[in-house]
């Protein structure tokens, strides 16, 4: 009898412990809280109603422990079992449902602009998106009543929002251009705004688009690198160069020191984009400099004017360095193919190559007095390489001469030995 009572007590304690474990199990409360909304919405055939519930598991908010009611309010613990959705969608419990397009930025900003709240999830996350958005063309038009413009969900999605670093996110760097083009390449959609819709095509074919979209080079810019993201605005004529200068810092610095800075401003033309274009920035090549058929300089400069002469002089200097480098490289390769170690020459060749790269950037001085010293340093480094290349070639020649002498000598010795053997064996034959 005692043993039976003991067994019952033990069973009771075990059951209580198990119940406690279920209740206290990490995350168990959150999941059940969310799932009552999800259970109900998932049961509908209409994708408009079931879609959000089905997608939400991939959403960063869900993964951070947030539930439907954290955005939409309402009472998630009621309604499903009772078969009455109104109990869940109770306005008294703060239910707000789906916000209207015009309210979306503010809706998201309730949390995303709350510095204390956001710190709990990610202390590094910025909280000024709403402010920026309001300064953007999108934000301003939205405030003026245009609900066709992009809001948070247009770019980030809704109910399946992913972190920017997630390659599946529409705002991941390689996906941004495609996301923007969703609206900006839609001619019909963009018709009221009277802006071009070929930016994506131009960008895709540009050097930036090639690098990012085809080669996956994340250092290459996409739409938001020049236009901003939440504060998306077309850069003004004079501020385009500042966007470019974010990456091409030296080019911008040299350009600002150049005579073109003032001249372009006076003419009212863009800075970088005047020669390089903007969405369709092509890969630069050395023939852009000078007065040849493919040169950009002759677009504005006519024969006889000082700019024309400067362009011609810079191109000549540049081509000289480039030709010398090619010659030096050929020399080293020739010696190396011949088997001479040219590692020292190759090391110096890097210095000369660097000078050529610097010269390409220094073109933006558009001033021979600043450009030529860089060419001179390159020429000096190249001459050094040429010396080493010539020395290597001389070494190669010496080897060939040495080999030419040594081999016949060796064969001669072998022949002499052979004749000696014959002589010995003729005098004293082997028995």
């Amino acid at each position, binding site marked *: 009898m005692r043993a039976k009572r003991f067994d019952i007590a033990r069973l009771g304690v075990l059951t209580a412990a198990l119940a406690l474990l279920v209740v206290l199990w990490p995350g168990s409360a959150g999941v059940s809280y969310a799932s009552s909304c999800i259970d109900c919405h998932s049961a509908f055939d209409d994708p408009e109603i079931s879609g959000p519930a089905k997608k939400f598991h991939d959403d960063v908010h869900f993964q951070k422990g947030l539930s439907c009611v954290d955005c939409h309010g309402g009472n998630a613990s009621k309604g499903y079992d009772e078969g009455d959705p109104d109990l869940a969608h109770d306005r008294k419990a703060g239910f707000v449902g789906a916000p209207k397009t015009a309210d979306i930025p503010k809706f998201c900003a309730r949390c995303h602009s709350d510095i204390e709240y956001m710190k709990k999830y990610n202390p590094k996350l910025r909280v000024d998106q709403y402010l920026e958005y309001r300064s953007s063309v999108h934000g301003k038009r939205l405030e003026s009543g245009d609900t066709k413009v992009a809001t948070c969900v247009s770019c980030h999605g809704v109910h399946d929002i992913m972190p920017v670093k997630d390659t599946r996110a529409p705002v991941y760097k390689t996906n941004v251009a495609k996301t923007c083009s969703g609206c900006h390449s839609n001619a019909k959609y963009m018709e009221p705004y009277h802006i071009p819709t070929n930016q994506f095509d131009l960008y895709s074919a540009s050097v930036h688009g090639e690098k990012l979209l085809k080669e996956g080079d994340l250092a290459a810019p996409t739409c938001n690198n020049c236009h901003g993201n939440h504060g998306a605005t077309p850069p003004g004529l004079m501020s385009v160069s500042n966007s470019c200068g974010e990456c091409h810092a030296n080019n911008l610095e040299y350009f600002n020191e150049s005579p073109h800075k003032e001249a372009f401003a006076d003419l009212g033309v863009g800075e970088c984009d005047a020669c390089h274009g903007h969405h369709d920035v092509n890969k630069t090549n050395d023939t852009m400099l000078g007065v040849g058929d493919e040169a950009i300089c002759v677009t504005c400069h006519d024969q006889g004017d000082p700019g024309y002469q400067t362009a011609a002089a810079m191109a000549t200097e540049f081509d000289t360095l480039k030709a010398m480098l090619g010659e030096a490289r050929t020399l080293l390769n020739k010696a190396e193919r011949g*088997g*001479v*170690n040219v*590692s*020292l020459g190759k090391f110096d060749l890097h210095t000369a190559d660097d000078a050529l790269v610097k010269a390409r950037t220094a073109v933006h001085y558009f001033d021979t007095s600043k450009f030529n010293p860089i060419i001179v340093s390159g020429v000096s480094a190249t001459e050094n390489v040429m010396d080493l290349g010539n020395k290597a070639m001389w*070494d190669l020649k010496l*080897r*060939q001469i*040495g*080999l030419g002498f*040594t*081999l016949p000598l*060796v*064969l001669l*010795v*072998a022949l002499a*030995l*052979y004749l*000696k*053997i014959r002589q*010995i*064996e003729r005098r004293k034959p*082997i*028995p």
Partner: protein
Amino acid sequence: MSDSSRRSNLVAWFDQRLGWSTIKEVAMHKRVPMHKHSIWYYLGGMTLFCFLVQIITGIFLLLYYRPTAEGAFESVEFIMTEVPFGWLMRSLHSWSANLMIFFAFVHLFSVFFMKAYRKPRELTWISGAFLLILSLGFGFSGYLLPWNQLAYFATKVGTDILGQIPVIGHWLLVVARGGDNVTGATLTRFFGVHVAILPMITTFFLLAHLALVQKQGMSIPIGDEYKNCRQMPFFPNFALRDLVGWTLALGTLVLLASIFPWELGEKADALASAPAGIRPEWFFCFMFQTLKYIPGKVWFINGELLGILGFGIGGLALILVPFLDRKAAHEQRNTIMTAIGWVVILYIIVFTVLAYMD
């Protein structure tokens, strides 16, 4: 006193002290059998010639080489670019090392097929087998010394194999590397092994091998047709023929060193990824490739360990060949041993080619 009598007095003076007339007497009376396989008698001498080239060029390289991780690559680069004829010395050293191992292998197999290991030449064979193993040791230790990328990773893979040996594996690996990883300590260690330990042991085995060859003379293959073959005086007939071979070998070495100088490659970088197609020197390739084909686990034994065990038994069998071939000891042809020899040659060639095709 005339010049000739002065010279003969000097010769006599040295002879009294060194007794070289006895050596001359032995050489003059030594005979080398002449038959259709006599050509193989020259291979031992050819291997010796390459070894002598190794010593001479090695001493030259030693004058400039610095055995540290910081200086090794740069010093070899210096030898190749700045030191007059440094490139030639290094290339001769590398080419002659490879030719030495090649000739050592061919010499071993020629001796094997002619059954020259049979009584009373068992010790000559054993000392020769040890010399081949020592040559491989020279090759393995010397490969790392330029401290380039390929050598670094090949040594890493090579010494990793040691770690697979049960119980003492890790200890052996640490002893070989001078630590857990291939570092400057490994380089210094390999250098010491390459220029001091191996030469010392090799000198002992080489002298023993040569003394035994001189004492017992050249072996005649089994068979009645060889019994009454002609005999060529070792000196000067055979010695001069040897010299012709050495002269031609020297010419070949100079030709190879000049037209195909040994490359230096990139400096070793432990943080860089291993170069593609990494493999050891050609003479280790058949073993390397075999280990690649053995599955990770064979029954319950580690596959790599099984491979190492197999090569260990193979090495032991090689040393014990004279005692395994009882027929040869009784002057009888042993077709099974000959067949085994051909299978081993075929295996080495096929697996080496496969390693290069991988």
